[in-house]
């Protein structure tokens, strides 16, 4: 059985599944309950300057029958007294000495940082996470994402923290920035032991069409919130990968963003995360999802022969390359399994209206469409929208002997260079005449 234990920049935990800082880590009660259920660590809901929260704090994005495909919040950091939180951290550590308890912090002045670091260390925290990500409320007061978006300020604060901290420091980054490696490098330059990402994306989750105000509506008004949940995983995966691949960001990464199942976690880990943090999925389904996460990841690691977490971390990075490194000679073509096809013809209309007019309708005796192979560019669209598993598959049609990338061609000086260059792609591809549009019903 794979060994899931981790040592993350000196913070040890029985497994890589940590609760991200947020409502599920608001109290010792919740954290103890989570550890009882099997979670390996918890980043405490951010401690810091005093706040007042509003009522009506969350908004959701539903997609078809799925609730909370996306989620946003306008909740601030903890509104519980610091003394209560410190006492509870101490109590949790008493019962769970081997689990990771990390104090998320957000204060303003250097003196405040000094004090609060001393407090959480005295309470027995295993590490500190600096919340430089919160994109609502706190940033208006010069904290949270206001820091994360200013690399110089970020670096200075990290330097203050490193001056005082005796325990490992994690810097949590905001994705509300053009290039995530810039604040990541600033954190490393400031001496941070590790980074975590992503915090939430600045968002308006929807508009109340009757109240004419953004959700969540607070007495007739709304504000931007922080977006998270399954919808943000693609953004998170790419940012984790960018940091993991940057030679200057050579610190452990805790992956956050859209993780709900072992598969999501495995993706983060393969792209360079050595622990993962989860919040929204717990807010949706409770701590019990750990029952699926741990055995799922263990089974996958056993299947792939990853004995330890270190064996698995970043294993997809060599294959995550720039576009110019992709093989231009690779060719796939869609294939419809007529026995599996249910005749919805969504592939037809998708290809016809949204792609390359490479699917034909059948005669009247069947509803199974056919692929016009000479038109198919192998874009995958039909296979993605097909509602039947394994009905439309993308079949490799090149013989695998040829390999040529844009970079190869650049070096060989064979890339197309003018607008109507003979060497450009798509030249032989069939496109109907514009007026053929009138012939379709």
């Amino acid at each position, binding site marked *: 059985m794979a060994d899931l234990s981790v040592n993350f920049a000196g913070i040890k935990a029985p497994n890589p599944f940590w609760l991200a800082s947020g409502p599920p880590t608001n109290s010792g009660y919740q954290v103890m309950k989570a550890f009882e259920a099997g979670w390996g660590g918890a980043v405490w809901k951010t401690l810091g300057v005093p706040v007042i929260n509003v009522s009506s704090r969350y908004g959701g994005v539903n997609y*078809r*029958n799925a609730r909370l495909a996306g989620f946003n919040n306008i909740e601030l950091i903890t509104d519980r007294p610091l003394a209560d939180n410190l006492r509870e951290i101490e109590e949790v550590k008493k019962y769970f000495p081997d689990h990771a308890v990390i104090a998320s912090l957000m204060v303003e002045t250097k003196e405040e940082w000094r004090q609060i670091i001393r407090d959480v260390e005295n309470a027995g925290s295993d590490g500190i996470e600096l919340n430089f990500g919160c994109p609502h409320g706190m940033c208006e007061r010069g904290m949270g994402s206001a820091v994360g978006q200013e690399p110089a300020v970020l670096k200075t604060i990290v330097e203050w923290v490193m001056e005082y901290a005796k325990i490992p420091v994690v810097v949590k980054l905001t994705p509300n920035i053009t290039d995530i490696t810039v604040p990541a490098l600033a954190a490393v330059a400031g001496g941070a032991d590790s980074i975590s990402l992503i915090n939430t994306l600045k968002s308006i989750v929807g508009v109340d069409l009757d109240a004419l105000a953004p959700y969540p509506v607070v007495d007739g008004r709304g504000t931007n919130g922080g977006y998270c949940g399954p919808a943000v995983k693609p953004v998170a995966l790419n940012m984790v990968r960018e940091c993991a691949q940057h030679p200057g960001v050579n610190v452990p990464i805790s992956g956050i963003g859209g993780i709900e199942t072992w598969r999501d976690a495995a993706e983060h880990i393969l792209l360079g995360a050595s622990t993962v943090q989860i919040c929204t999925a717990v807010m949706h389904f409770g701590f019990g999802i750990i029952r699926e996460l741990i055995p799922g990841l263990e089974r996958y690691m056993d299947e792939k022969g990853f004995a330890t977490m270190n064996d698995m971390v970043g294993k997809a990075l060599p294959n995550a390359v720039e576009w110019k490194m992709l093989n231009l000679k690779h060719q796939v073509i869609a294939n419809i399994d007529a026995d599996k096809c*249910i*005749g*919805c*013809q*969504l592939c*037809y209309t998708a290809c016809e209206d949204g792609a390359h007019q490479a699917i034909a309708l059948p005669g009247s005796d069947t509803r199974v469409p056919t692929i016009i192979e000479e038109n198919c560019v192998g874009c995958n669209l039909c296979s993605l929208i097909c509602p*039947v598993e394994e009905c439309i598959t993308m079949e490799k049609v090149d013989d695998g002997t040829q390999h040529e990338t844009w970079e190869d061609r650049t070096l060989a000086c064979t890339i197309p260079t003018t607008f109507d260059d003979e060497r450009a792609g798509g030249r032989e591809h069939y496109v109907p005449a514009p007026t053929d549009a009138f012939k379709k019903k």
Partner: protein
Amino acid sequence: MAELKRPTTKAEFEANFAQLKPLMNSTEAYYESSRCLFCYDAPCVNACPTGIDIPLFIRQIHTGDLNGAAKTIYDSNWLGHACGKVCPTEVLCEGACVFNHQHIKPIEIGRLQSMATAQVISSNKKLYQCAPDNGKKVAVVGAGPAGLSVACELRLLGYTVDVYEAKEKPSGLTVYGVAPYKITNEEALEEVEYLQKQFGFTITCNSPVDSEVLKGFETDYDAVFLGIGLGNTWLPEIPGIDLPQVTGATEFVEKLRMQHAATTIPSDVVVIGGGNTAMDAASESARMGAENVTLAYRRAKHEMGAYPFEYDLAKDVGVKGLFNVQPIAIRGVDKVEGVELVRTEVVDGRVHPIEGSGFFVPCEMVILATGQVKQIEFLGEIEGLDLEHNGCIKVNAAYQTSNPHYFAAGDAVNGGAEVVNAVAEGKVAAHGIHQYITEA
């Protein structure tokens, strides 16, 4: 003991006749509508006689636009609510749903349809604006599905429409002939009231039309539409057919629909026939508490005209099927004591009784679902109106009869089909009438 206890109170009656397709709540509709694939050239639409844009109205339900969904439905089908409940969706839209090919439950189109339309009916939402009065008048004979469809469509075009109904209530078979567990009287009548309020056609009930009245219509109206349906049950000439406990299925269902819990039924009932009406009559007898309901059909089970799901419904409430038998006499002096049946065989497609195979099935009531007669006598009095050899009214593609002043659709033309067929034909007929009048 029968499957269902004899109902003695209104509540027990309603429990035995619980709606097969109850209204969806908004959560169920949200989830169910989310499953629709929005097929291209959707098979469900092609399977609907009225061609409702089903994927569109389901999408509208999902986005919370129930008024828009109802409008999409009514644009194609003026009895959208009733059809959602009474249509044999299993063999129409839902039977065509592509999910069937994947062994996934098809979308519950009928229930989604009734859900959206129920919302506009209960809120009396005005969805249509009739064209200004064009000064032309059309008389509609029969306030059944065909007649109502014609009335709505013509009012939209600006015609004055007067509907004449022989019975006490409008709706035709939707209220008089469909099994009560498919639609309640209230639901059927509320939709007609909603349409009438919105479109402003008149309905005069208890107003049978005879040839003399028709003569008046010919001068008072620019066209006449005949949506007269079929007549009473055809009764075979066998001994005992006049006994008081012998009834036609159509008449039996009508009595049940009008008198509900006040109807009583004996413990042993024989239903003769193999069509959907026979299934309804048998199922209803069992739901009324009859302990032994025997369905006797002269051919084999697979030759029944009834949809398989209708037979399943009857079997579910304890009805017993008896096939390849036909009645030769009903026994009894003042009341029914049983039916004399004889076994049959089918030779060259024709049913032949087998000599000496007779047997007796004791019962106290016989319901004959042996088809309805055509109203040949009444129709014969209309000058120049030709009938098909089977007694159906002869019409062209615009549902115009051989007497150009008369149009007809529904059961009187198709010989007896579904509510949805009558609605579809009525819409075409209305446009035929419009063309006839505007081109005259």
